[in-house]
């Protein structure tokens, strides 16, 4: 089964790290290690770090009109900062991987199963 690992965290903490190269290095090392583990286990299908929400644009179509708004879809305490797509037999395995994500310590990791559509087998 495919699961999306959605990484939520407080961007303010992330921004603080910009002035702390040592903390930055540690974090990237942790993620590099995590990515290696995912690949080594053969479960990684995709993944990426998202640029902060100030770079986001939200698009809606209402009454036939395209409405474009600066920013994320909603203001939230924690923001979506990255994702992984993994392929594992069941939820418990997905949860184990989510718990090993370095961002799980300060942030929240949502584990969402990916539904099967006709094109994705």
């Amino acid at each position, binding site marked *: 089964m495919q699961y999306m690992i959605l990484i939520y965290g407080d961007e303010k903490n992330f921004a603080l790290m910009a002035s702390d190269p040592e903390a930055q290095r540690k974090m990237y090392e942790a993620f590099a290690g995590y990515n290696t583990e995912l690949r080594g286990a053969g479960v990684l299908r995709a993944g990426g770090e998202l640029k902060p929400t100030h770079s986001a644009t939200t698009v809606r179509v209402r009454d036939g009109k395209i409405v474009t708004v600066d920013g994320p879809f909603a203001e939230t305490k924690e923001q979506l900062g990255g994702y992984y797509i993994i392929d594992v037999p*069941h*939820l418990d395995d997905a949860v184990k991987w989510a718990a090993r994500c370095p961002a799980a310590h300060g942030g929240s990791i949502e*584990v969402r*199963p990916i539904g099967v559509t006709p094109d994705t087998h």
Partner: protein
Amino acid sequence: MLTAVIDSICRSEGARVLAGLIRRFGDFDLAEDALQDAFTKAMEVWPLQGLPAVPAAWLTTVAQRRALDLIRRRATGPVYSDEPPDIAAPEATESGGSEPHPADVSGVDDDRLRLVFTCCHPAILQPAQVALALRTLCGLSTREIARAFVEPEATTAQRLVRVRRKIRDAGIPYEVPSREQLPERLQAVLGVVYLVFNEGYAATETPGLVRPDLCAEAIRLARLLVELMPQQPEATGLLALLLLHDARRATRVGSDGMLVPLEEQDRSRWNRPAIAEGLALLDAALALRQRGPYQLQAAIAALHAQAGRAEDTDWAQITALYGGLLRERPSAVVELNAAAALAMAGDTERALAWIARIASSGELADYHLLHAAQADLLRRLGRLGPACDAYRAALALVRNEAERRYLQRRLGECGG
């Protein structure tokens, strides 16, 4: 009535058959649907053909065929032509004839264990865990579960639909947890069983309200857990605790519908065989030398059960056991109970101060028993004015009729 007999058989065999179906087909929903259809068929066929010699085998055979049929109908891909043809109803020879797959029989205990842990998976909200456990393990109907939790039947039905959907969509595994996870997951399972028991234990005996005996169901579940995991002392401890509590249930509410406190209960009406069994189980659990919160609570209950009269209760020992419980499972409620025991052991002033500290932390502000405990201690010390205030505070929060009447009585005794 034959219907009642068939219903009872389906209930007692249901969990076993369901567990095997889930293992076979790996689909909770499908297994439930197939089993439901097998029950319906049993209701139609058994009155005509007689009860099968091995009901579980009959139900398994029919349910498996039904499941294969359902898979065929749901499949969007090619039809699996090598599956056995669907037979509308089994012949009378099915009763002993068609043997279930060997793995169905040998793996039965593991299957039921898997079912228990699946019901109590952390990805499921606890109320849904309870509803699912009552349904799949105890075979209660939606209506019975709804009545037990005093909610509309539609709400319970929705709850069950949602949880089965969650299991399917999220891919919750049908598995016994790994060794590292087992202790924590087991505590969750025991917690669910305890919750079920408490619902039955603390509920009022309201005349005219028909409801299943939740205490009996909880004890049945606890027995199943002990049967499946005999080396887990906490499972045995829980069963001991439930039996010891249940032994007193008949004396808990008076004929006037008022709660009878422990010290006023008629001990001659306590269920002595249940107490004996509970004590034996506690000994067995303690012999495994792995203390835990349920064993501790059972030990406390045992001391109450063994006291011939209320004044013979070994409160000092109970207080010591609460100390142990606080170390294992610190919580405001346990602290409250420990303080109450301390008061009974003789140190009422210290106990009152302790309860005052709990109260000032704000933690149990809406818990009627906090105020009731305060009121009780103040009453014993002769401080009737403050006792009345505390009884009134408890009355403002109490929801159970039997308890409300008891508090009202005490308030009256204090001149309030």
